[in-house]
């Protein structure tokens, strides 16, 4: 078996099954898949960096907004309560469940916000064709590692379930913050659709070697 070309960096290995492929330029709108297991190796979309960057900026703004606007309003027995996201997070206040405050806050606010910031930091200079900022590779690596722990979309479903549960007890209405989170979920979906890690790593790689 002849060992791969002189520069192994010109190859792509499938992240799921380790099969080696020759690297070829990917045309816009095209997607290349692993010949053995079918995993997407790289895809190229029109304006991928622009779109991913726009989604990340929108993301950060929506999270900040969702924090401070009223989230849910509850009307029952003549009283009106409105809870912000911060109330929901700090609800786990005392006793045994205290660590949950941190976990819930991290999943729905801190991690999505950090991830969005890291993506903006990585992509902003690339969008203008400039060299990436110091530590862009670390920031991008960090953003990718955070991805499974960013759970805003799951929280939305949780809100709907909670509303069904208390629907009998009180009149509930949703505040602007809820709709901001819904928008956030849609933006996240769009971002995932346009996101090709491999392409961004290629660009970052060119600069580190230059």
């Amino acid at each position, binding site marked *: 078996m002849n060992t*791969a070309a002189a520069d192994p960096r010109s190859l792509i*290995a499938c992240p799921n099954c380790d099969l080696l492929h020759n690297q070829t330029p990917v045309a816009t709108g095209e997607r290349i898949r692993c010949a053995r*297991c079918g995993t997407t190796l790289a895809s190229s979309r029109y304006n991928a960096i622009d779109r991913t960057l726009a989604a990340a900026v929108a993301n950060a703004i929506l999270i900040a907004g969702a924090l401070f606007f009223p989230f849910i309003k509850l009307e029952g027995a003549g*009283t009106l309560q409105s809870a912000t996201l911060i109330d929901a997070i700090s*609800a786990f206040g005392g006793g045994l469940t205290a660590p*949950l405050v941190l976990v819930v806050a991290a999943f729905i606010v801190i991690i999505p916000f950090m991830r969005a910031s890291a993506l903006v930091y990585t992509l902003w200079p690339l969008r203008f064709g400039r060299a990436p900022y110091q530590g862009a*590779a*670390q920031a991008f690596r960090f953003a990718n590692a955070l991805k499974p722990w960013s759970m805003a979309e799951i929280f939305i479903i949780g809100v709907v379930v909670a509303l*069904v*549960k208390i629907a009998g007890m009180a009149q509930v209405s949703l505040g602007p913050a809820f709709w901001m989170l819904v928008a956030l979920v849609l933006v996240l979906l769009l971002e995932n659709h346009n996101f090709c890690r491999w392409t961004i790593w290629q660009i970052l790689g060119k600069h580190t070697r230059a």
Partner: protein
Amino acid sequence: MDNLANPRETYAGLTARKAGLVACTTCGQVDHPRAACSRCNTPLHSRSPLSYQRTLAWLIAGMIFFIPANIYPMLITRTLGSERESTIIGGVIELVEYGSYFVAAVVGIASIVVPLAKFAVIGMLLASIRRAWQLNPHQRLHLYEVTEFIGRWSMIDVFVVAILVALVQLDFVASVNPGFAAVSFALSVIFTMLAAQSLDQRLIWDSMNETGQDE
């Protein structure tokens, strides 16, 4: 779109490992074996070290915490001196009684079916790697990907508790508090997510015999 007609040139069945090369799991760059990836600085390993052991450890931790999560109450509701505790299953039954079948199904699937299925799938994948079971690697990879994707959704119930507690917080008549199960359930979900992440899916293909090479 999909370019299956032109499957690109591949080195027939040659993996990075067989070629004496290492692929970075973070950025995908292929390189000669070295300590860390030259592009993204992730430590390079042909296969994640102790992937089997770490996955097994997280899996067991996740299973252990799933037990108190189902025994202890998730929510404690106090109304005018009377106290009511509801467990995960109790919460689902309550929703069925309200007639919200769809929401009951969502919660039931997310907090009972998905965690149990995850334990089974990760356990099966570990066994298939250790004992080199010649099962269809495509199906196993697919199972792995579904498990990794769907595991986070089990968090729904924890968030429901958070929202309920926040909403009813200021009320004088009723008070709702999270129970111990909320913590153990959250930990169980986190541990099983870590189990799925620790599993190096390339091992699934390594365990196939050379003759099992498809196409």
